[in-house]
């Protein structure tokens, strides 16, 4: 197990370096955008004197490196800084936005895993037959529908026409959990594309695994078909899917901007979009750190799981 510990440590270290690189890159890119927070705030009344006052009050008149250094040293003390636009701590932005996003992501993943594994296994069992063709073509077709279109369609049918569900979560804020009906459509939209990729990956993995010599051997020992499928083949089949799942979770957590905008869910994606438009650099940086850390942790976790399921798989670090 010590090999695994060393491997994990190496992965985490690499992850920290990647996160730092992401933050630096984000800082540089935001600096390179035309206009700063003062210009964005001044909007269409770009009175130069007012812009100068805003800039000064925000500390934007200081050199970029100095601001970066301040921010980094704050970060080392666990301080993500304060928003330029509102003066509130960046951590409250992230904490507020995290709740709704996490809730959506959790619900989506809870449904996504059984659904896509189920569909994938179903299609693999009936390879080439009607069920397989149905699953394969529906997932392919569904995958081609962009989230925005999918969302608009679902809202029109289920919320506006049939009036079964609320069209948006407007006004519910972070207490989404108290309004479960408002979560149905967003979760469906979020599920729509990942379920396709995952089901197809599971199907392909399952077909390979069932055709592999060890599965045939297991069958020759008289082990039941279900046991061969779920205990022997499935772990191998889901390995690529695990990593895809990690990427999906990452995508969900980074705030699914389209879904949040369409359903008025004030999650991380909304926070990010607002912060970029306002050139609210501390908030953008804070989010970059969070997203960077999340990505690293999730991918490391996925690789660990993949190694556990398929140790011979030589999972790339």
């Amino acid at each position, binding site marked *: 197990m010590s090999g695994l510990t060393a491997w994990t440590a190496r992965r985490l270290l690499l992850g920290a370096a990647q996160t730092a690189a992401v933050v630096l890159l984000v800082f540089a890119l935001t600096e390179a955008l035309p206009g700063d927070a003062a210009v964005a*705030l001044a909007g269409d009344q770009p009175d*130069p004197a007012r812009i100068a006052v805003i800039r000064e009050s925000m500390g934007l008149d200081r050199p970029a490196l100095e601001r970066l250094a301040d921010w980094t040293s704050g970060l080392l003390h666990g301080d993500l800084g304060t928003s330029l636009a509102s003066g509130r701590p960046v951590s409250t932005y992230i904490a507020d936005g995290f709740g709704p996003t996490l809730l959506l992501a959790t619900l989506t993943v809870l449904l996504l895993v059984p659904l896509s594994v189920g569909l994938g296994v179903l299609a693999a069992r009936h390879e080439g037959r009607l069920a397989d063709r149905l699953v394969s073509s529906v997932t392919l077709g569904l995958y081609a529908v962009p989230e925005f279109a999918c969302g608009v369609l679902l809202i029109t049918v289920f919320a506006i026409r049939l009036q079964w569900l609320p069209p948006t979560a*407007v006004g519910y804020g972070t207490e989404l959990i108290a309004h479960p009906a408002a979560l149905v459509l967003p979760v469906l939209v979020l599920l729509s594309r990942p379920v396709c990729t995952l089901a197809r990956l599971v199907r392909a993995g399952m077909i390979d695994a069932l055709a592999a010599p060890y599965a045939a051997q297991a069958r020759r020992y008289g082990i039941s078909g279900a046991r061969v499928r779920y205990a022997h083949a499935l772990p191998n089949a889901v390995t690529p899917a695990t990593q895809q799942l990690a990427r999906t979770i990452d995508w969900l957590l980074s705030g699914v901007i389209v879904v949040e905008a369409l359903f008025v869910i004030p999650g991380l994606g909304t926070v990010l979009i607002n912060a970029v438009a306002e050139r609210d650099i501390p*908030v953008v940086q804070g989010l970059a750190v969070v997203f960077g850390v999340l990505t690293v942790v999730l991918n490391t976790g996925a690789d660990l799981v993949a190694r556990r399921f398929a140790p011979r798989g030589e999972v790339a670090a």
Partner: protein
Amino acid sequence: MNDIRPTRLPRTDARFPGLRRRGFLAATSGAVGLGALALAGCSSSGSTDTAAKGGGKPQRGGRLRAAFAGGGASETLDPHASNLFADVARAKALFDKLADYGADLSAQPRLASGWEAGAGLDRWKVTLRKATFHDGKPVTAQDVLYSYRRITDPKRAFRAKADLEPVDLEASRALDERTVEFVLKRPTAGFPNVLAAFGAYIVPEGAEQFDRKPVGSGPFRFVSFAPGKSAVFRRNTDYWDGAPHLDELEIVVANEESARVNALLGGQVEYAHELNPTTGRAHEGKGQIEILRLRNSGMQAFAMKTDRKPFDDRRIREAFFLIADREELVQGALSGAGEIGNDLFGKGYEYYADGLPQREQDLDRARSLLKKAGAEDLTVTLDTSPVAAGFPEAASIFRDQAAKAGVTIKVRTGSKDSYWTDILDSGTLCSYRSGAMPIETHLSQRLLTASTTNATHWRHKDFDALYQQAQSTKDTGQRTAVYQRMQRRLYAEGGFLIWGFADWIIGTARTVRGVETDAPANSLDWARFDKVWLA
């Protein structure tokens, strides 16, 4: 230009006068003069349109939920920091200004029951009406002075600061509990407009924190607030202007236009602000929801820099005025939701020069003017940006119109985040637009030598002098004559090719009554929920 820029997703941006990106209302600037009131946004002045008004006798009760595009987690209830339409709607529920704008953008008394100018127009005595804050304390002259001093604090950048610039707050004082004497730095006939300035709300003396439990004198009391999500207010039974009909008002934030429409259609809100023309057309007269058009809201223009080639030649500017087919621009760039302009700001507002002939496309005359100016093969770059809906469309329509007069226009699309700053001093021709504000504010902020946002670089000493003359003229008739003289000059040779005025579109549930449509955004009756009721 005042903008309000609500959302940021480019997809949605395609709407109306700009309002779509996060809306900063622009106010401000204008160090000169008067009240620069900038109000922002697209606004509208409207003429009445649909039927939300009327509808019988007001009924008491209920909660109205209103959806606005907002500013996310950075939103604040500090009324002096108002930036967005949503901020104004919230500030208006909780606070009052001394005055506010009527439908023609003239100042109407609010907390001030009246004002009286001294002979020199540089001293104004403002009397307060009997009003109380939500904590029961009376609104006093000290509160007014405190509020104005807070706004003009040199260390801060509140929007109304520039509007209050004419006031010498050091010298101004409270004559008694309910009388303030304002001393001005120079004669300012338009001083009442200063009192109505965007964001010039009266807060209790000493108030600094507004997000917890803001205390104002407005028609609603604070209940709760979550930035970027929702703000709930309850009727103030003691409101000086009569208690609101509604028991509760909730202002929710939804940046995406489709989300606001869907929430309205799905019964989650009863009022949706800023809808786009296609939505308006789709639902108008269908009976499901009411569509209200606040006419004559956002001014739509091209701005020519009058201090540089080729537009330093007034014949070329006139040729450009004649190139524009305004009807085609309104149909194409505003989807028909608007009306044509006559190269003057503020159609229908106080002091508007409505006696001038409507300018029409005249390509022959345009060509001959260009020929006389020696600019027959003129090539001009037109700066535009998706910063406001309709900009890129208007630019390409105008390019085609200009081609018919032999002028080659190259359209250059710039960044929308820094557009307004970029076009201020660079380029020669650009897309431009503005929200509603009094005409004198438009003049003082954009057309005087010292104006800080003078996008046409119109700088003429005699024009400045006319402005000062208007501000020193007590007689309204004479003052109007001076303003009209200034407008005639702009009409003949100014730098703003004002081709249209956009409608502002609002949707309401069928149960909502009492929504005023003759109300440009940021005027008194716009987003005014104390007069609204649910049938």
